[in-house]
């Protein structure tokens, strides 16, 4: 009876969550794997099994997929560095006893609350119309550039918006972590005559590695999958130069009506992203220190 009772209770607690997990995540994931071996336009009742053909086609003929991949990598690396450096700097400043630090923390965090698509449209307006007008008024070269109209400005446009949006979130994580660092350590170092740079590089940074692991992982997984902001900001244009892999997969499936190839691409991408993030977590974890 107790065994029955135990399994019953276990089922009661885990059951609902498992059902939703299976329905919403596991089932689509595996059916996606199935579709990646088929030719399907998304509408026909029966997909046709084609074996490995989709994968061969992607590697042999689809140069745009790899162009998108290269763009995503450049974008990810740039954003990764920019957001983390900025967030760490903001966090360091905002743990100092400044009067306005409460409101400032809120202000920096606020962009995170706005939805991605909306944010993209707002920034599209700022970059295209706002910058253009500022350029006309001030004759500053930066604002006179055709923002979002060339591959370079498109790239930096997306980087700026992404950084602007994510810095606040990471900053909160860093602040929480920095506040947890034992002040005795810093005081002791100060008495021993450590310079503030020495204190930063020898004490604060090593002790923050666990927060850095988290933040790197977060940005890595956000930017690799980035879709909404890019869609509303440039939609991959001009001439597909700012197309992220997520957008590329979307276009393949829904504009080109190749659900099979689209699924195959997402499978390849899943394996790559999974691999990279695992490596990153393992690498930064090995650098973490404990007191």
């Amino acid at each position, binding site marked *: *009876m107790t065994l*029955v*009772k135990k399994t*019953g*209770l276990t089922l*009661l607690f885990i059951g609902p969550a498992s059902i939703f997990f299976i329905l919403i995540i596991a089932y689509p994931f595996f059916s996606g794997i199935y579709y990646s071996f088929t030719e399907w*336009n*998304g*509408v*026909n*009742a029966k997909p046709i099994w084609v074996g490995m053909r989709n994968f061969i086609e992607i590697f042999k*003929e689809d140069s745009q997929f790899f162009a998108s991949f290269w763009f995503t990598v450049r974008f990810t690396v740039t954003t990764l560095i920019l957001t983390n450096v900025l967030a760490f700097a903001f966090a360091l400043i905002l743990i100092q006893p400044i009067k306005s630090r409460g409101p400032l923390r809120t202000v920096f965090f606020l962009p995170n609350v706005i939805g991605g698509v909306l944010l993209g449209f707002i920034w599209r307006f700022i970059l*295209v*119309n706002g910058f*253009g007008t500022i350029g006309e008024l001030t004759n500053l070269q930066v604002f006179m550039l*055709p*923002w*979002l*109209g*060339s591959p370079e400005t498109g790239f930096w446009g997306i980087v700026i918006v992404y950084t602007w949006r994510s810095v606040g979130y990471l900053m909160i994580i860093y602040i929480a972590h920095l506040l947890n660092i034992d002040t005795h350590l810093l005081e002791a170092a100060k008495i021993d005559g450590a310079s503030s740079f020495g204190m930063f590089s020898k004490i604060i940074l090593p002790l923050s590695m666990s927060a850095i692991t988290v933040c790197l992982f977060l940005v890595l997984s956000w930017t690799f999958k980035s879709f909404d902001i890019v869609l509303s900001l440039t*939609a991959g*244009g*001009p*001439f*597909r130069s700012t197309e992220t892999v997520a957008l590329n997969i979307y*276009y393949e499936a*829904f*504009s*080109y*009506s*190749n659900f099979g190839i689209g699924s195959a691409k997402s499978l390849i991408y899943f394996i790559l992203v999974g691999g990279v993030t695992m490596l990153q977590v393992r690498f930064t974890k090995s650098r973490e220190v404990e007191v």
Partner: protein
Amino acid sequence: MKKVLLFVIILGAVASMCYASGQAEKGSEVKELNLFHFKVSQVEQWEEITEVYKNVVPTVNLNIETVGGAADWSTALKTKFAAGAGPDIFIVDGPALAKTFSEYLTDLSDEPWVEHVLESAKRPMVFDGKLMGMPFNIEGYGFIYNKAIFREAGVLKTPKTIDELRQAAEKIQNYGVTPFGNGYSEWWVIGMHLMNIPFASQPDPEEFSNALDSGKTTIVENEIFQSFKDLFDLTIQYGNKNPLTTDHNAQMSLFNTGQVAMVQQGNWKEVGIYEANPNAEVGIIPIPVNNDPDVSNRVPVGVPFYWVINNQSIVQDEAKQFLNWMVSSETGNRYLTDEFSYIPAFDNIKSNLLGGISNDLLTYAGEGKTIPWSFTTWHDGMYNEFAEHTQKYVAGKITYDEMLQDMQDSWVKLAK
């Protein structure tokens, strides 16, 4: 344990009650007719139609679903079908999408309205001799131009060829207005509508596209595509700044504020133009492909969408009845012409209150000076690729010949 048992029993009871009530609804007399369209601007009118139609046929309840604007309505539609919840009546934008949905389409050849549909509007939706879709209206595009600016700049005759258009552009430039407002960031402006012109200006566009499919000819060696370079260059040379960041809204605001004299758009912008400026003097001129006025002086006219009926639907007869009501009853006609401001695709529906653009289009159509919307027959994905190649050319990344070669390569790749 008892509590768990009780919980399960209650859950079961609730579930069976839901099931029972669902059953009851099915048995009642009112039938649900689900309709899917993408005209976001018509949401209110469709709500009215739903109410009105309740009085016409009390046993049918219309459910209207609208997905559109810049949103991917065809994505939503495909998703619905993939989920097994295809609507009873829905929209396809042309034969290419109709082919995608071919296994769901119902033959409409025997419907009473068929004899009144304009021949050119019927043709794209005839498969194996069967008419599979019903058009509402025809649309056309070209260079919408500001008549006042043309007059004041001294352009008194509407240009028919590239050379004449260049002379006009020079005069307008000297007058102090930018001649062209290019919305080249918009894939459908540049990849679909602009690139349709050289395709549709071929002596036989259908044969040309078949010849491309079979490899008998190429885009690169085609004379019309080569001469089209002059037109493309002309719009860039005499165009607005940053065409690759100008979308269709920006384009229209340039036009409505008189900063540019021409925009490549269609009669779907007419309502907006008159809203911004009730006394606007506007008209439309064709986009020339060369210096031969017989080939060049033609507007592309086509059907923007067709209504089709899902053959899996259990209310097919009701669906046919509804579509027929829209084009044969007085109320239905009023919605087409007055509320939607359409140019009807039927010879028995009179349109009134049309603006300058629509009237110009009707004049060209009446004189037979039209070319088709060839892009409706392009393979899936071609708009995107053509937009990519042409935008590269606008940005100066590739030459015109490289652009034609890239378009050719895309065609070969996607025709497979």
